[in-house]
Structures are given as structure tokens and as C-alpha cells.
């Protein structure tokens, strides 16, 4: 058996298991069970403490051992970020080390720059300021072991913090370049960032909980104001099917949470689409996931759309289910299975409220 053969077996198992689907995540049951486990552990711990009173003398004889167990230092972080600025020299807007290796991030390309770092693919054009009232726009570049994270910050931002799953927090200080301010760093792709927070000179401006995109660097989609209730997480499979002439099994899942709204295409080539969660007009139908070489399509509707009737090019009709979750409706289809010629959207009472040609939206 060769290494190539073993890899092939892994890929074939992967393809076979891709046909396994599941219902919604039983999130409430999992959390309730987890809390019950924790309560049981606490009770067991209390019982152990009661028993330990009898052996206190032994513990007193081993204070150093106990101290070591309780106060063991966490391992040193793999990432260091230097404080630069406030104005970039030679275009350098970030420097530090990742896993002991130094990195330097430079801007290039004029007033709408790209960020570049040695050994890491650059970012797309960063722009000069974040969209709307967002405090920062963070673009991740690259697809290898390390990612370049860079973007403009708004004028009122004094600094950003980046908090990791283990609680370690890094401070990112903006550096000015051509009159606009940017932050940049190079990170391992699997760095588990749980929150970015933007601060002005006077306090917290906004925070972002990134979308934990599997296999990708966490994606910042939405910024929330301090004190905003953190939106609950919900996920579901919008639709799935099998394309014999395409990717085989495909599925589109929606994940709504504090990050915003994300649609993920499994089996196809689209990957992940995310945007802040917004309120759509009741009869809105918006196609958000499509591409020239991608057979899956997915879109979002307003709350009034119950289903979409498709007229296919072969003359047949098909009903497209709309999944409602978090005040939004979601639909997905494969145009390989049956390219639609026209469509009509209906309410729950069967009233048509929108119509069009081609793929809905």
C-alpha cells in the first residue's frame, strides 16, 4: 500500500461519508446535558473536599506540589505583535513573530492598497476605510498554514484587541499610511479567535464575534455595539440533493449567530457566503450564492415567502421549500438537477407575491 493509495482511501471515505446528513443540531439538549455533567462533577468535587479534610496533614506536607498543580503557567503564545507607528515607514504597517518566525506586513499599490508579507499570499484591495459605521474591515489573505490579516480602521478607533479561545488577548494598534489607518498581522490559519473589540480613546466602540468557518481563518462579518444582546446561534440544512453530473452529494447549510448570517455549500465549490444579518422586506427574494461554474444556487427571502414554484426548462414544475429561521427565509437548489425557466413565490395562504424568470432572485 502506497502513501498515495492511503490518501486515496481517505478521500473515498470522505466522499462516502459526505452522503451522511443530519437534522438540526440539538443545541439545547447538548447544553442541558453538559450543565448536568458539570453539576455532577461539582457535587463529586464537594464530596472529595469533605473527604480531603481527613488527609489535610498530607497536603500540608506537599505545598510545593499543590502550588505547581494549581498555578501552572500557560505555554507561551506562538504570536507576538510589535507596536508600530503612528505613521508607517516604507509602507510597513505590521511586524511581529508567529511560531518564532518574524513577519513584516507592507502596503503597496497606491491609495487603495493591498497588504503583502513575505511567504504569505497578499490580500485583495483593502480600501481606505471600513464600510458604514464599522470600526474596522479585516481581510484575510492566503490559503496555507499562515494567513495575512489586514484592513482599514475608522478614524475614531484608537486600537483593536483580538481575543483567543484560551483567553489570551492581543492589542492591534493602527498605523497611518497615505492619510488612512490600518492594522495588519500574520497568524496561523487555525488561530482560534473568539472576539475582536474596537476601542476609542474613551472606551469600547464595538465588538465582533467571528464566524468559525471550518478550515478557514475565523471570518469577521458583523460588528455589534457594546451592550447589544449577543444574537443566538441557529443552524439548519436549507436543502440537499445529489447531482449525478456534478459534485455528487451537495448541501447548503445556514448558520446564524453573533457573526451574522452565513450560508455554506458542502460538496459544491461555492464555499461560504456571509453578511451581517439584516431585515428583508416581506416579499423579498435575493439570490446570494451563485457562480459561473457552480451548480448550486441559494438565496434569502422575506418572511412572507412560504414557497417558490419553479417551472423547469423541460416543462415540469417543482416546488422549492423555503426554510424560515431567525426571521429570514432561505432556499437552495441545484440548476443541474433542473434548470428553472421561471418562478413564482407564494405566501402560506397560496397568494402569489413575486415572479420572475430563470433562477429565483
Amino acid at each position, binding site marked *: 500500500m502506497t502513501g498515495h493509495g492511503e490518501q486515496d482511501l481517505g478521500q473515498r*471515505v470522505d466522499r462516502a461519508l459526505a452522503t451522511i446528513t443530519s437534522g438540526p443540531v440539538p443545541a439545547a439538549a447538548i447544553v442541558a446535558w453538559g450543565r448536568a455533567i458539570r453539576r455532577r462533577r461539582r457535587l463529586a468535587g464537594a464530596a472529595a473536599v469533605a473527604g480531603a479534610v481527613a488527609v489535610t496533614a498530607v497536603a500540608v506536607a506537599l505545598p510545593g506540589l499543590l502550588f505547581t498543580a494549581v498555578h501552572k503557567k500557560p505555554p507561551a503564545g506562538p504570536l507576538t505583535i510589535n507596536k508600530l507607528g503612528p505613521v508607517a515607514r516604507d509602507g510597513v504597517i505590521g511586524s511581529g513573530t508567529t511560531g518564532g518566525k518574524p513577519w513584516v506586513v507592507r502596503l503597496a499599490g497606491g491609495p487603495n492598497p493591498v497588504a503583502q508579507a513575505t511567504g504569505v499570499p497578499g490580500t485583495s484591495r483593502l480600501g481606505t476605510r471600513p464600510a458604514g459605521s464599522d470600526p474596522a474591515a479585516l481581510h484575510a489573505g492566503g490559503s496555507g498554514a499562515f494567513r495575512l490579516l489586514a484592513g482599514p480602521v475608522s478614524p475614531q478607533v484608537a486600537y483593536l484587541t483580538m481575543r483567543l*479561545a484560551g483567553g489570551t488577548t492581543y492589542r492591534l494598534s493602527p498605523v497611518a499610511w497615505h492619510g488612512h489607518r490600518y492594522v495588519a498581522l500574520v497568524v496561523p490559519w487555525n488561530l482560534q479567535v473568539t472576539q475582536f473589540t474596537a476601542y476609542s480613546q474613551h472606551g469600547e466602540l464595538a465588538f465582533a464575534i467571528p464566524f468559525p468557518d471550518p478550515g478557514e481563518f475565523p471570518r469577521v462579518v458583523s460588528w455589534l455595539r457594546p451592550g447589544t444582546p449577543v444574537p443566538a446561534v441557529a443552524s439548519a440544512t436549507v436543502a440537499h440533493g445529489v447531482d*449525478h453530473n456534478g459534485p455528487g452529494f451537495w448541501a447548503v447549510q445556514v448558520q446564524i449567530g453573533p457573526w451574522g448570517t452565513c450560508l455554506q455549500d458542502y460538496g459544491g465549490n461555492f464555499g461560504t457566503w456571509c453578511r451581517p444579518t439584516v431585515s428583508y422586506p416581506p416579499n423579498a427574494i435575493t439570490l446570494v450564492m451563485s457562480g459561473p461554474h457552480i451548480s448550486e444556487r441559494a438565496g434569502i427571502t422575506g418572511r412572507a415567502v412560504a414557497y417558490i414554484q419553479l417551472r423547469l426548462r423541460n416543462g415540469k414544475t417543482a416546488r422549492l421549500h423555503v426554510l424560515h429561521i431567525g426571521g429570514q427565509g432561505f432556499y437552495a437548489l441545484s440548476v443541474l438537477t433542473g434548470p428553472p425557466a421561471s418562478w413564482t413565490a407564494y405566501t402560506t395562504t397560496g397568494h402569489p407575491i413575486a415572479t420572475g424568470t430563470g433562477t429565483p432572485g
Partner: protein
Amino acid sequence: MDRAAEAEFSGFMHSRWLQLVRLGFALTGDSGLAEDLAQTALARAYASWPKIRRTGDPDAYVRRVLVNANRSRFRKHRVAEQLTGTVPEPVPQEVTRDSDDRVTLMAALLSLPPRQRSVVVLRFWLDMTETQVAEALGCSVGNVKSQASRALATLRARMDLTEEMS
């Protein structure tokens, strides 16, 4: 747990659910059991989340818990395993070579003894090292090697893998 940790766990749970169910299915051949195992792994992860997030590799933790929970299922309850050898998906009317291959491979995988199946899934699907597999299954590296060798021989014999695997 504080609000940020709750939100973090929630994100982790939702993003890993399907993969854990698939791992459970690969180990058990039963979609119901697979979801039970995924729930078990995530509930235990929730109970220890502050500690797990400090380790920086929650994926390894939930995989280990899932594999151990499956082992315990056999050890404690002496479960008589009934394998269907089919995937819980309606077979398409036009069965292509590709979908045929999936069904055949899944059937062959599920026909392996539990330990060999676990080794194949962990070693070749999850791409874990032999040492990691040995730790996850609580056995020696040598045992992993021999189980993998037997499993691959069985798979070769049960389906036409020789063309692409050797």
C-alpha cells in the same frame, strides 16, 4: 461560563456537528447512534469548555471523547452490533459508478471489526498519525499498524481497491 465562552462553544458546536455525526456513523454504521455519540462528545466538551479552550485543540478533545464513548458502548453494554451496510440515504434511481463506489466502500468499511474500522477512519479519513490513533484508541502504535494492515487487506479483498490503492 461567561457569555463569550457560551457563544464560542455554540459556534464550535454548530460548525462541528455534521462532521462528528459522520465520524459517529463511520464508527457505528447507525445514524441514530452516530447522533447520540456526537451529542455525548459535545455535552462533555461543554462541561469542560473553559479547560478545553485553554488547550487550544477542542477538535482533538471531542474526537477522543466520541471514540471513547463508542468503545465504552461495547465494553459496558456488550452491544451486539448490527450493521446495515447501507447508507441512510435513498438510493437514486440512476445509480452511477460514483455513488456505487460510495455504497460499496461504506458497506466494506462497516463490515470491518470495530477496532479495525476505527483505525481506518482515524488514520485515513481524519489523517491522524499512528501515534495519535494509538492515543485515541488506548493501544500501542504497533497495534495500530497491525490493525491498519489487516483492515486494508480486508478492504482490498471486499472491493476492487487494488487498482487505485496499490
